[in-house]
């Protein structure tokens, strides 16, 4: 273990090598994804595929880690900001910056060992999960919302979809009703409120879940990983929906036809 990682030796003697060889995918480099990029680099992840089509703008500066005022002026692509931050922490990292929607580069996504989903909307999440399941990639999704009302309320979640185990639908995280409602609202203008502190809590929890899954430091392995965040009470708790359904295996992505490229060619 090198001096660089001497404060995380409890993760195991091989953890430095392991993280150095893992490729992490980060889909969306806004408030959540930028935190995850930064923390993954600090942990020692050596390979990245980062996806985001957008440019840095002033409204991003309230929460995008690594973005500067100059980036907002110059409209620096978010992938460039994230790559610069990762390389600043670990100059030996290999970063694939993909300045496009993740669907434009499936081969890069499939090369990832773990993917972090930091995107809005249920249909986007459902598509990303299906693609990850098809390539047997664990997907850790984070998301938060500020609910309008009197007073306002902040909530969020971290959900892990592990191949072979319950998926987002099994867990009750994605329901057909949500997809239908979202389809009806398609085209509505306006960005959702987002704030740096709750993005940070969720991103840190997601990175912790990733580390615990790859190099466990204790014997607790969550049978499911659906963690709900109450941003008003500042609490994180396991969501009980999966326990209620009693599922231990996935009933949605279980067939052999749900795996691989439908028309694989050498």
């Amino acid at each position, binding site marked *: 273990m090198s001096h660089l990682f001497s404060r995380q030796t409890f993760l195991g003697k091989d953890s430095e090598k*392991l993280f150095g060889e893992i490729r992490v995918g980060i889909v969306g480099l806004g408030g959540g994804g930028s935190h995850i990029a930064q923390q993954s680099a600090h942990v020692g992840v050596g390979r990245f*595929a980062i996806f985001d089509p957008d440019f840095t703008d002033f409204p991003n500066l309230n929460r995008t880690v690594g973005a500067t005022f100059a980036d907002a002026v110059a409209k620096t692509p978010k992938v460039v900001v994230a790559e610069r931050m990762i390389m600043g922490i670990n100059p030996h990292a290999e970063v*694939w910056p993909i300045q496009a929607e993740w669907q434009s*580069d499936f*081969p*890069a996504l*499939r*090369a990832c*060992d773990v993917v972090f989903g930091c995107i809005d909307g249920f249909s986007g999440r459902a598509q990303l999960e299906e693609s990850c399941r*098809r*390539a*047997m990639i*664990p997907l850790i999704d984070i998301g938060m919302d500020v609910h309008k009302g009197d007073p306002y309320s902040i909530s969020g979640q971290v959900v892990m979809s*592990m*191949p*072979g*185990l319950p998926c987002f639908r099994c867990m009750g995280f994605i329901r057909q009703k949500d997809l239908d409602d979202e389809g009806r609202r398609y085209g509505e203008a306006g960005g959702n409120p987002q704030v740096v502190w709750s993005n940070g809590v969720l991103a840190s929890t997601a990175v912790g879940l990733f580390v*615990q*899954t*790859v*190099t*466990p430091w204790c014997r607790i*392995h*969550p*049978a499911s990983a659906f963690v709900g965040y109450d941003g008003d009470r500042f609490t994180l708790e396991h969501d009980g929906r999966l326990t209620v359904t009693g599922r231990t*295996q996935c009933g949605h992505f279980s067939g*052999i036809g749900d*795996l*691989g*490229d439908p028309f*694989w*060619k*050498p």
Partner: protein
Amino acid sequence: MNVHFKITTGLLDGIFADLRRPHPFASERAAFIGCKASRCRDGNLILAHTYLPLPDDWYVDDPRFGCVFSADAMRTAMQFALTEDASMFHVHLHDYGGAPWFSRPDLRESSKFVPDFWNVKPDLPHGTLVLSPDGAAGLCWYPHQKTPLRIRKVTALGFPMRFLGGAR
């Protein structure tokens, strides 16, 4: 080209349990895994899905080898490849710790029977995998290539994820 073999820990644990069962005369067991393939930026993924264990009476009593399987075993595996459009991987276990590798008879015999799967699925990769309690190694016959590729990485997906090695 990199080949990355992926399997769920649930399926892997079931394979270990089956391969560790004593056989009436064979000193080791073998089986097949039906897989799907996926192309990624730095190579190909082989994605394990269905375990096809061999019944006791599909083994041939040949004291020169740890395990010899009958034509029924190959026929069943080839049928699976054909109907499910699957890549087929032979699997056996060296039940001692550390990074496993194939014996000379393993290499000789697998180089004969693995390419037979191209008779039913010529455009898919097929191969062989050897497991140990904490490691794995494999060879993959890529379509239209005579020499097999070494599997670079074997990953078991679950809690925790297990990285079982690969290229020797």
